[in-house]
Structure formats: C-alpha cells, structure tokens
C-alpha cells in the first residue's frame, strides 16, 4: 500500500445546531502521519468536528485545509479519506469483499486489480479468506476489522475514526486498540480519532485535543495533558482530580506554600508550579492516586499531611477508592492500587492523607 498522507489544518471552524453552538472557533494543525485524538464528553463537539473534516457536515464559518489546499466546499467523495463509523456502517446487502471493494469501484480501479487490493486490505486486518461472508455473519470485532479494511483499501490521505471501539466489549477493545496503533504506525497515515475514553486517547495518540462544550480546552501530548492539565475540567476529565481552594502564602526555591481555606498549609514543588506570587488565589489539584492514607498520628516527613475522617471505602479488589472528609469540610477522593494497607482503616476513623509536593498541581483561578 502506498499512501500519501496529508496534514490537516482547521481555521476558525464554527458550527451551530439551531441555538446551540456545537463547535466554536476551532483552529488547529494536525501534522502529517500524526495520530491525533479529539477527546471529550458527549456533546463536546468532537464528532461534529470530525464530520466537518470529513465533509459530511458543512461548517457555518471557517475552513478545512489538506496540505494547505482549501477543501471546505469539497464533497466527501472527492476528499480521498477513509472513515470508520461508530456503528461500522457496513452495508448489510454486500459481502465483506463487496464492502471493501466499494471505494475501489467508485474510483474506477481496473477490475483485475480490485481483487488483489481487497485481499491485501483484508490480510492487513487479519481477515484473509473472509471475503464471501455477509456482515451479519461476523462478530463485532470482525465487523470492526472490515470497516477498517474498507477505510484503508482506497489508500486514503487521511483516516478518520469516530469512536470505533465503543461498541466492543472491554477485552476486545483493548486488543483492537493495540492492533489499531500497530496498523497506524505501519501505514504512517495521518489519523484523526474521536473518543470519550481517556485511556484510549492517552494510549493511542501522539497528541490529544481535549474539548468541552464546543471549545478546545487544551492540546498537547498525552503526557502534557495528563501531567499539566490547563484547567480543572481537563484535570478532572483525564484521570479525575480533587480540587481545594487556597491562597499562595510564600514562594521560595524549595517550593510554593499554599494556605487552604481550612487553615492547613500545602507545599507544592516550585519546579512544577512556576510563576506564582504570594497572594494569588489558586486551586490545588490533587490526583486521587497520589494520595496515601496513613494513621492520623503519622508524621509528615518530607511530604504534605492533611487530616480528616474516612467516610467511605469502595473495595474493587485490585483497587480501592476512599472518600475522606477533611477538617475544613471538603471531601476528597483517594485511590490505592494495592489496597491491603488501606483496608486497616475503618469507615468513620480519623485518618490522614499524605502526598509529595511533586504531586501538587496549582491552577491559577481565572481573574
């Protein structure tokens, strides 16, 4: 397969549905060969954006460019893209072979050539010899592969994937996820992926765009968006987070000291939290997995220590989540991957949570 991937640029993309704004003034550049993911909750505008890139939906304003060429008014059938739909959209009246061959027939590929290319595409997704089946005779995972083969057989310049794994069961999803990423690296095709699943986004992507209510909240590498979320929404959507309001007391080379509303002081790493000055109103962001439950009389050591009462334990075997009511009244969640230790604490017992200054992320409150 010889693909000539493009880069994709959208500029000022805007789309309304009646009174609601689905995508608001979106601009970004997707590099050639990149695996780019739009991540966000349902209704955030990610699928709308994908459909505008595909040409299935016209933007109210803004433009879409492939390799700098304006394709905003080009219909989908002239854009040379492969797309996998959430429900696969396999044509039920055609065999697997006919489904995959469809785009080649439309491109007037010589009849003699079609058979070989279809077989090659089916082999690529591990379905060789299945061409004679009907979609209804395939399992969900196999249908997914056919959809993928149909998308890549035309040697598209761009591959669009709209929540392709959401209809599979958990085990198959993980397997297909791995195959998808291998296939994409192998073909080197520019790929745009839409999902609400943060794990998929982090695992598959070279870059992730987090969207919320039609707006782009943050764009960056998986590590960027997870480690340095730009705002509470991104922090909460990716991995979950506890938020505590506070005010910067002092900034030294050793760290930033923040006074919480309950009076306790939390120290944050200065290397990770730059540009703060005493008096700044901030939100302290703590990942649940960074919080360690310890007895109430434990010493702080080099870390931070907040005291409270254990309110709720949710034991999941490999994982335990706890809800702790801090002295100030705030509820925070802690999470431990190996819960044997945490099991010592009973609900209602006084307790402390310990965390390192490295795990404290300060978010500036909007003025």
């Amino acid at each position, binding site marked *: 397969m010889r693909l000539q991937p493009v880069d994709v640029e959208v500029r000022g993309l805007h789309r309304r549905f009646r009174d609601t704004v689905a995508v608001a003034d979106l601009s970004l550049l997707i590099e050639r060969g990149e695996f780019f993911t739009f991540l966000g909750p349902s209704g955030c505008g990610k699928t709308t954006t994908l459909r505008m890139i*595909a040409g*299935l939906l016209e933007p109210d304003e803004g433009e879409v460019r492939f390799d700098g060429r304006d394709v905003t008014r080009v219909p989908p059938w002239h854009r040379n893209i*492969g*797309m996998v739909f959430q429900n696969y959209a396999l044509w039920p009246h055609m065999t697997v072979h006919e489904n995959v061959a469809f785009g080649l027939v439309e491109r007037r590929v010589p009849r003699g050539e079609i058979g070989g290319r279809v077989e090659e595409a089916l082999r690529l997704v591990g379905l060789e010899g299945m061409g004679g089946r009907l979609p209804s005779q395939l399992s969900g995972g196999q249908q997914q592969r056919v959809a993928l083969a*149909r998308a890549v057989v035309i040697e598209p310049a761009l591959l669009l994937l709209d929540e392709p794994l959401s209809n599979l069961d958990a085990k198959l999803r993980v397997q297909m996820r791995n195959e998808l990423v291998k296939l994409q690296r192998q073909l080197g095709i520019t790929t745009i992926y839409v999902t609400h699943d943060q794990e998929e986004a982090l695992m598959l992507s070279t870059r992730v765009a987090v969207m919320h209510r039609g707006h782009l909240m943050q764009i960056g590498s998986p590590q960027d968006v997870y480690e340095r979320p730009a705002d509470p929404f991104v922090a909460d959507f990716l991995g979950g987070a506890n938020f505590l309001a506070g005010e910067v007391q002092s900034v030294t080379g050793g760290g930033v000291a923040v006074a919480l509303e309950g009076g306790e002081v939390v120290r944050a790493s200065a290397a990770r939290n730059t540009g703060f000055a005493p008096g700044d109103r901030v939100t302290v962001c703590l990942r649940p997995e960074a919080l360690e439950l310890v007895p109430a009389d434990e010493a702080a050591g080099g870390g931070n220590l907040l005291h409270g009462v254990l309110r709720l334990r949710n034991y999941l075997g490999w994982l335990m989540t706890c809800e702790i009511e801090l002295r100030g009244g705030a509820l925070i969640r802690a999470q431990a991957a190996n819960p044997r230790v945490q099991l010592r604490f009973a609900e209602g017992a006084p307790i402390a949570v310990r965390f390192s200054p490295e795990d404290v992320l300060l978010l500036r409150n909007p003025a």
Partner: protein
Amino acid sequence: MDPGHAALMALLLAILGVFVVLPIGAVLKVALTGAEGGVTLSHLARFFVTPLYMESLANSIVAGLWTVAIGTVLALPLAFVVARYDFPGRMLVVTLATLPLVIPPFVGAIALMQIFGRAGTVTLLAQDLFGLRLNIMEGLRGIILAQALHFFPFIFLTVTTALVNVDRSLEEMGQMMGAHGWRLQRRVVFPLVLPSYVAGALLTFVKAVDDIGTPFILGFKNMLGPQAYLRITTVGRDDVDGYVICVIMVIISIVCVLASNWIVSRREYATLQTGARAPEQGRTLRGWRLAGVLGLCAAIIGAGLVPHLGVVLLSFSKVWSLSYLPSAYTLGNFAEIFLRAPRFVVNTLVYSVGAALLAVVLAAAIAYLLQRGRVPGKGVLDWIAMMPIALPGVVVGVGFLRVFYGITLPGIDQPLAATWVIFVLAYMVRRLPYALRASHAALHQVHPSLEDAAGVSGAPRLRAFRRVVLPLILGGVVAGGVLVFVTAAVEFSATIILVSRIEQSPLAYGIYVYSQSALGRGAAAALGVVAIVIVALGTYLANRLSGRGKMAFTL
C-alpha cells in the same frame, strides 16, 4: 438548506398540491360558497334540516356503530384466546381469522344475499324446517352484517397485537398484589389494551362509513356516501348538496382519525417500557377447556368465512334460485369475465399497477426528504401526503371530478376526468399514505451512516443512493407498492363516482353492474373471486417482502 433537496421538495409540493390539496379544496369551496360568493354556512345548515340527509347521517352512523359492536363481539374472544392460551392450531386460527379482510365487503354482500337474503339458503332452511320467516339482509341489517364480517379481523389484529405486547411483569405485579383470573384481566389487562382497542374501533368505524359499495350492492341508498353519489350523478356536478354531504363525511372521518392517532400516541406507557419482557407462551389447554376454545374459534372463523364460501359457490353456479345450493354448475361465469368481457379485469390491472408505480416513486421521494432532507418546512409534505387517510373515497372521487373535468390535456378532446388516467391518479392519491408508511419504515432501517460511509468511500450522492440506499429499501418500498395495488384493485367508493363509460370501468364497478341483474350475479361472483385472489396473493407478497407480519392490514 440544500438546493437539490429544495428543488425536489418544490416538485413534490406541486404534485401533492394538484392531486391532494386542490380536489379537497374544491369540495370545501363549493360547499362553503354562497350564491353571491363569499363564505357561508347556509348550505351546511340546510343539511341538518333536510329529513333525507338527517336520516342518511343517522343510518351511516348507526351502521358504523353496529359494525364495530358486532365486530367487537366476534373479535375480542378470539383475540384473548389466541393471545393467552396455547393450543394446537393456534397459528392456523390467526391466519384464518385475518382471511375476511381479503374479501371486499361489497363482494361479500353478494354472497350474503345468496345465503341470508329473502330466498337465501339459511332463510329457506329456516322456513322449511322451523316455519320461521327470517329477514336478515333487509335494509341496514344486511349492510351491518356484511361489514362486520369483513372488518372484525381489523379489531382482532389490533387487540391481539396489544395483548401480546403487554409487558408480562405488569401482569405479574398485578398477581403479586393479589389479583388473578378474571379480576387480573379486568383490573390490569383490559385497561392496558383498551387504548389499542378504541383506536382500532375508531378506524373500523371510519372505514365502515366510507364503504359505499355494500349499500350499493344491497340497494340501500339512504346513507351518506350513496346520497353524495346520487346528488352528483343525477342532479349534476354543480349540485351543492353533494359537496355538503362530502364535507360532513370528511368531518366524521377526520375527527375519528385524529382521535385514534391521539389515543395511539398516548398508548406507549402500556407497552414500550425499557426492560419490558417478551410475553411468555400462553397457558397450555387440555380437556373440556380445549374443546370449548376450539369450538369458539371454529364458530367465529366459520362465520367470517361464510362470504368466501358463498362467493366461490356462486361463481361456479349456473342456476341458484329458490334452492339451498346451486342446482346447476358451470364455468361460464369465468368465461364471461375473462373471454367475453375481459375489460374489467384488464382495466383493474392497468389502473392498479399504474397507481402503485406512481405512489411508490412519490412515496420514496417524500420519505427520503422527510428523513434525510436538509430543507425547512418538510413536515408539510408528510402532513399533506398522509391526508388521504382521513378522506373518504367518495370525497376523493367528487373532488377529482370537480377539478379535472375542467382540464383538457392537449391532443385529447375530452376532459381529463373522462379518461382512464383519472382512475390511476385517484387510486394513487387514495393509497399514497400506505406507500409512504412503507417507504418510511424501510428507510428508517437504513442508518444515515451507511450513506455517509458511501460518500466517504467516493460515491457521490446519487450513486450512494443507487448502490446503498435503494437496494436496502427496495423490499419495503415494493411491499408498499403491492399494498397500493391490492387496495386499488378493489376500490369502489372513488370508482363509482369517476366511471363515465362502461368500457373504462374496473372490476369493482363491474361487480356492481353484474350484480344488479339476477342473471349476472354469477359473473359478479366470478369477478369477486378474481378480487379475492388478487388481494390474497398481494397481501401474502407484501408481508413476505416487508419481512414482517401484520403490516399489510395495519391501516
């Protein structure tokens, strides 16, 4: 907005405007325009002080109500038995119970005359054996009997479907609360099924009032439909009273259809809840209960099949007069209708096929716009296309006559309304809702992403439609077309208004003409057999094509 879609919508609106809105508008206009122009209700007011019209109104309503009542008595026990019990021959009962729908009521009427009429089999038997003087087919009674025997499956199907769809857990909850047996049926099941029954009964009432074939065949003219026909054909096309009667019929029909739709739209609480469990197989019956149930089924179905037997028997009879059964048999009746006067059958085929083709194309286009169209105001299309469902056939006929008598096509020296084309158009309009509903359902099965996928794969819109959408909806659309064909083939109401020359007349009118003479009754029955065969085959085909049962007769 999509310019292609907008153009298509304009075209469809124009077609529907000419063939649906214009005729009904013309009827309303005549009925509501005063002598000096201007809107007036004086014509309508005169309707209510004319004794003949008031009697006709009363007769139509009384006949409709009795039809529903007798139909209910026949249908409900059968529906409960079939839905609640499991017994050998259950599916056969369901099939046989729907058979009366394949015999148009005016065809059945001919047979009923032969069996229950003044010199009918049963009448003679009663007289000879018990000295009784029966008069079952006299006046309204005959009409009610013919219609009830034809329409009861309608109520049967509605109620059975509703019963089968009742969420079992609702019943089980009732049982846990301490209700069982008759009390459970009365307090839980009946209330759940009642809306479906009422909706079905209302539609049956509408169809009964709309049916003017039966009164005509039985020679009873003091009803709304026949009166409208008589005014228009004897007094003239400009006679206001005919149009006023049409308006009254439309009002009755619209009120019932709207009420039925309203009830159906509110019904969902009973059946379509999330997590509703499929009904279990009914209770198995044994012993005397089984015998009782089978006896009940046999009696009801037997009654429903009397018209079929009568028509078949009559179609082969040479002489059947003042005797229990025909005294001589012949194939001459079929020779008459196929060889000596084949025009009735040929005309019927031509008109019905034409109407089906037109309706299918129109319906597919409308359904496509409604579901996929990006153009504002498309709901109007649905509204107009579904309107004929509430328009009695007489009214469609009268409206067509009014509008298209004044239009002469170039190259033909006669009014459009006097050519055979008018039948095709009238049948098409009358059955368009069936075709539209079928297309709608078929297209609904095709997820928009299938079309999107074709577009992304490189197929422009028309090719995507041809290669993906069309093959997928074809079965359902054709099934709708077959349904149009079948119902058009036995259309009587609009036909009798539009027939201007015997050479143009289709089968339904032929049956009427033959049945008016004692000697022609055999030929009428033979045409009736042809009608039954057409309807039976078509219904079977439509059900096969649409891949689902029952669809054919859910109005």
